[in-house]
């Protein structure tokens, strides 16, 4: 008798998550019955090749990864966040006609097909991709822009060819200054600045910069940049141009809007400013700062209440701009005392480093749990959140409030 009931309820909780807007009334009611889903995940929507993601915007699409996916070491392709700037976005790519054009200040202009690119030596590694505005909704005072929670990031195994191999094939002329990257997205109006990003030549020639045609062993979802996107490990995702179609070597510093004006941060150590005293000097956003998160317990999955005496697994992820994570510490008393967590497998300096510990509370009450990471470069996280008007680079020590109830119910 119990078997069918079990599977029926299981189906509701899982399937309800998959239903999208029109089905949302169904999800909402189903949620009340079975899910206790946190408001953080609402509303959700399904887009092509994607699972149900938190809907920030539908045109141009901005979709956030629900927090439970960070329990997995690699973020599934269908769950990775989506962020486009300008409608219309590419909705059709045919590899019979798609080419990657490499031109500008080079000896030989190239037009490479996907077969040409796949014939070149492939590289593969895990790297975190993170939106510049990840966690923007937590800025106080609030700032304009996509109101991301913490789910505008992903830990992905990327496969592709080295940008340096392609640039060497074209042969950069002496006096090359920057390399620019343009994708298939254009913009709604003739006057709208095309989304083009630039890297300095020295950076572009570094071995870890990849032109990726696979993520986690499969082609990229179109919304994540099929057939190819730029991978700039340790740098914010604004540089990871999607649906890449054009690489241009320049002999001057590129001054397009998306480099000269947008995605700028205060030119100081913390990239911080105050609403009444905005930074006068700014620079293009660049390398990640150090972050660490709670995956369990987490208010973002509704897992914050436990029975006294039960052993609670403490778990999360940490990463930095590429030096790797040296240590992760957690506090069970609001930052009064700190203990070291056990680090999980090292998947590379640019990847998530999972951390774990266990805690068996012996007194009921409300506990403030905190986590902070220290990178191999010696960078750690601030106690107080820094603020800038773009809502970029949040990396404050993360806190989760946990309730320990009176007794363990067997």
């Amino acid at each position, binding site marked *: 008798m119990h078997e069918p009931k079990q599977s029926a309820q299981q*189906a509701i909780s899982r399937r309800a998550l998959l239903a999208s807007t*029109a089905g949302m009334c169904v999800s909402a009611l*189903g949620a009340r019955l079975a899910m206790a889903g946190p408001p953080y995940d609402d509303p959700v929507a399904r887009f092509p090749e994607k699972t149900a993601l938190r809907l920030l915007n*539908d045109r141009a699409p901005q979709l956030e990864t629900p927090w439970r996916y960070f329990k997995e070491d690699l973020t599934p392709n269908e769950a990775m966040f989506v962020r486009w700037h300008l409608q219309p976005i590419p909705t*059709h790519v045919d590899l019979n006609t798609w080419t990657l054009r490499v031109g500008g200040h080079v000896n030989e202009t190239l037009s490479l097909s996907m077969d040409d690119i796949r014939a070149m030596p492939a590289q593969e590694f895990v790297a975190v991709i993170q939106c510049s505005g990840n966690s923007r909704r937590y800025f106080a005072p609030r700032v304009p822009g996509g109101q991301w929670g913490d789910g505008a990031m992903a830990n992905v195994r990327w496969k592709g060819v080295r940008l340096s191999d392609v640039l060497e094939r074209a042969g950069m002329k002496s006096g090359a200054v920057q390399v620019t990257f343009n994708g298939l997205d254009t913009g709604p109006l*003739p006057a709208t600045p095309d989304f083009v990003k630039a890297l300095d030549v020295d950076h572009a020639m570094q071995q870890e910069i990849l032109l990726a045609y696979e993520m986690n062993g499969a082609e990229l979802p179109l919304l994540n940049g099929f057939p190819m996107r730029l991978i700039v490990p340790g740098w914010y995702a604004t540089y990871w141009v999607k649906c890449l179609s054009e690489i241009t070597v320049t002999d001057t510093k590129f001054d397009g809007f998306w480099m000269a004006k947008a995605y700028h941060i205060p030119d100081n150590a913390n990239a911080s400013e105050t609403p009444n005293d905005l930074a006068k000097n700014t620079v293009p956003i660049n390398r990640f700062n150090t972050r660490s998160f709670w995956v369990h317990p987490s208010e973002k999955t509704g897992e914050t209440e436990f029975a006294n005496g039960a052993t609670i697994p403490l778990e999360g992820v940490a990463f930095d701009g590429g030096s790797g994570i040296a240590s992760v510490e957690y506090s069970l008393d609001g930052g009064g005392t700190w203990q070291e967590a056990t680090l999980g497998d090292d998947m590379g300096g640019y990847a998530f480093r999972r951390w774990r510990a266990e805690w068996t509370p012996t007194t009921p009450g409300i506990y403030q749990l905190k986590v902070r990471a220290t990178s191999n470069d010696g960078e750690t996280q601030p106690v107080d959140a820094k603020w800038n008007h773009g809502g970029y680079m949040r990396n404050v020590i993360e806190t989760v409030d946990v309730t320990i109830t009176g007794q363990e119910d067997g």
Partner: protein
Amino acid sequence: MTDKHPAPKDPSEVSREHDETERRLDGPALIIAVPLLLVAIYFAFYGVDSGRSDIETAQMGTPATEAGQVRQITAVTSKTIELPHLQPILPPGPGLEAVEVNCVVCHSPRLITDQPDFSREQWTEIVHKMVGTFGAHVTADDQDLIIDYLTFIKGTDTSGDSQ
């Protein structure tokens, strides 16, 4: 540390424990749950407005034989997606028509409704950015109406006077 905290848990185990708590249901709730379940399953399998994708693959080279098994090597040759229409309806307010005429051509109304409340000064800055930076053709009169509307539905001014 490792001594005190043996056998770190597999993240999938944590996820399963969470599932268990989700599965508790009262008897009467089941009467409501079953029809809902059928609807939910329908939407889960057939989707609702989730857009469509059409992915073409082609066989690449000859099938490779690996450990006695024939492994088909295919590669995606094209992708076509159809984006879902999920635009919200903007709430009524002074200047709504100017917003509908000028703003939603380039972006969803959700770009507005998903924002926090801002001051009139901040909304003015945002509207000017849409015109000056992104090239929106909006008359000066309409810009004022749009700012009125945004301040009305998403303003930090609590006096109730949007002007």
